[in-house]
């Protein structure tokens, strides 16, 4: 009877965007007379944070504070088309569409500011505080709140912009599988440390080390949430989850969370995470999609750590105590032979 400790490794990559492309998303941006910029989308926030990321992309491109950005989504009567939230595409597709729309709106904003300040638009700059100022003459400036009002009532201009991102569809060659499936690839490596109880077969994940290369961390706290929350899901897939515990037999399918087990707080490992940035040429500020991939590397890392701990190679998911014990029994039988 012992608790056996082991380490396992896994390294993975993951594609950004709908496989084979052909999945456009649009964004419309307009300034109200209050100087607030409304980003109209039909994109869905599942809790992953696309509303926040869209607002950050708009604020950065416009050169304005986050407080000046509103995101209005998702209503198919008022929001332009979005293919949907899946395939790690939201940040990449919607982010790019928002940047394109915000860049057009910024161009108008600077033109109107140039009229208002009686200068050349090329001489204007923003610093993220809400002012549009003449480069090198910081006292010659106008705040967006005043400018938006003037644009409407004095200059007769709409400060607005349109954006779309489309990766043109690729058609696979049926004979060889030649295709252009993705916009870019993100990367990860996970090291798992586990403890296997050889009496009960229970596997406890003690520590996870995760290194992720994600292009650019647009919001490092939200990227951390993705990495650590996804690792929880990977751990859960590895050790607990299935709707058909005796697949391919259809019996004993759980119908609620009393039967469909997932890790609770006490099952959580200590997580050490690190983000690397290799900006993607086509990503919004270089970002790649990491929404999905964060559940992936922990699963094989845990499988490999179980082998390292106790010599049992589990090739069927999930790695339940029953499978661990059967594996340990099989090892004993081999030894006696």
């Amino acid at each position, binding site marked *: 009877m012992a608790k056996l400790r082991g380490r396992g490794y896994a390294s993975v990559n993951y594609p950004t965007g709908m496989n084979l492309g052909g999945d456009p998303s649009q964004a419309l941006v307009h300034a109200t007379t209050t100087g607030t910029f409304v980003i109209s989308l039909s994109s869905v926030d599942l809790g992953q944070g696309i509303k*926040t990321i869209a607002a950050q992309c708009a604020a950065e491109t416009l050169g304005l504070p986050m407080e000046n950005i509103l995101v209005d989504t998702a209503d198919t009567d008022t929001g332009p088309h979005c293919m949907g939230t899946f395939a790690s595409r939201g940040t990449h597709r919607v982010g790019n569409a928002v940047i394109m729309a915000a860049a057009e709106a910024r161009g108008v904003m600077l033109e109107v500011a140039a009229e208002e300040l009686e200068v050349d638009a090329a001489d204007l700059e923003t610093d993220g505080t809400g002012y549009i100022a003449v480069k090198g003459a910081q006292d010659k400036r106008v705040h967006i709140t005043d400018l938006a009002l003037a644009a409407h009532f004095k200059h007769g201009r709409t400060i607005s912009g349109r954006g779309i991102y489309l990766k043109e569809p690729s058609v696979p060659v049926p004979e060889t599988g030649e295709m252009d499936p993705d916009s870019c690839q993100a990367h990860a490596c996970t090291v798992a440390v586990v403890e296997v109880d050889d009496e009960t077969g229970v596997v406890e994940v003690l520590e996870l080390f995760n290194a992720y290369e994600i292009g650019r961390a647009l919001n490092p706290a939200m990227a951390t949430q993705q990495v650590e929350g996804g690792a929880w899901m990977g751990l859960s897939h590895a050790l607990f989850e299935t709707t058909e515990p005796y697949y391919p037999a259809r019996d004993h399918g759980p119908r609620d969370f009393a039967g469909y087990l997932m890790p609770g707080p006490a099952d959580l490992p200590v997580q050490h995470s690190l983000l690397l940035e290799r900006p993607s040429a086509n990503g919004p500020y270089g970002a790649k999609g990491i929404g999905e991939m964060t559940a992936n590397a922990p699963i094989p890392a845990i499988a490999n750590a179980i082998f390292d701990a106790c010599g049992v190679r589990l090739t069927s998911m999930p790695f339940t105590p029953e499978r661990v014990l059967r594996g340990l029994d099989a090892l004993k039988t081999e030894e006696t032979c």
Partner: protein
Amino acid sequence: MTYRLAPVDTTAFAAERGGGDLTVIGSVVQRSDARGHVTGRTEFFEDVAPPRLAHLKMHRSARHHARIAAVDLGEALAVPGVLRVLTHADVPNNLYTPLKLIGVGPDDEPILAVDKVRYLGEPICAVVAETEAAALEGAARVKVTYEDLPPVFDVEEALREGAPLVNEYHGQNHFIYEGHHCRRIRFGDVEAAFARADHVLEWRYQSAPIEQAPVETTGCVVIPQADGRLRIHSDTQACFFTLDNTALILETPFNKLRIVGGTVGGGFGGKVDVVVEPIACVAAMATDRPVKFVYDRAEEMQVSSPRAAERLYIKDAVMNDGKIIGRKITLYVDAGAYARHSPYGVTKAAAHLPGPYAIPNVWADCHCVFTNRTPSSAMRGFGVTIADFALESQMDQVARTLGMDPLQLRLLNAYRDGDVKAHRKVAEGTALVEVIQKAAEMSGHELPETYRRMSSTTREGL
């Protein structure tokens, strides 16, 4: 505001990172929905409570595979509060497949079963009632007489000659890719690689279906409007995709429908299918009342499409120095009784093979197989998650067989900028080498100098 924050490494790709003058990007900004979620103020679709709201519940198949001999609605219609019991005859275009929108066919799935059921839990009749309790009672009182057919549950059994036919609309128990029985990858000469390899190593990997398990189950509230349009409050992951599919099923102009959504209590791929909106719209039109149809937890777990079970056989040609010179993969994806998004997921899986490694000879057959179980569909990591379990377990087994360090084996085979992938796209922006090096550093796993000096942008150390 307190939050967990992983450090951003500034050493790797230092020359490419740039971005020093950004003011908002790269900064921590609080999630816009966080306060609403934790204070219970966020409005989800179920917070819409129009007057005269009716409720819809399904009567579902009690068999895995059977002919429907008779359906008796008498007792269900007699339940007080039951307004309508809808059958396939009430659905304008009862046969669909969601990927029709991107040109994938054939239509293979009924909204409500016609003469046959192909999985346990398949919807047969929709009961619309004044209350949820009356709808449940009505659904329980629908009487279906079945003539059982033999089911098939195993992907390889399903592909054998003489196996029961799951889905007549396909005509065989697998999806056909442009005339081929599976999605194929053919790159180099894998058999020649096996012939000259020092080791040929093959193992099998298997997963079971997994539930997306969102906190908020799949559902919608449909509200008929004064102008004749339908407003659909939905937790779909894809508003226009749901709108377009629903319009095709209702045989109504697209602009008769409006989807309002965008705030969803978790999806993980489970809300990409279009399974509640069409029948709820039929019910709303039939009764001229707002209708709510939301899955209970048991439906979410056993009827809603899970992550597919997958089976992979991976056979590697490996040299004594650890170089993998060939990899042959046979993948079976258990699509269940209907295609849903599985043909797409299988192609995505094919594109992912043979993993993030530069292997010069790759052969893959990726099968999308029909069986008599709940249709599987999209889930986080669609086509990739289970493949990664298999590929990375394989890498570990290869390393163990050779007595090599598992990270050194990966670094030796890692793809780098300029490598041609098995699907013949040239790799760029790669960083597998660097994440392995960093993970080793973080976890105290020592690598020799030659491996620490490797890079995704050079061939150093190879």
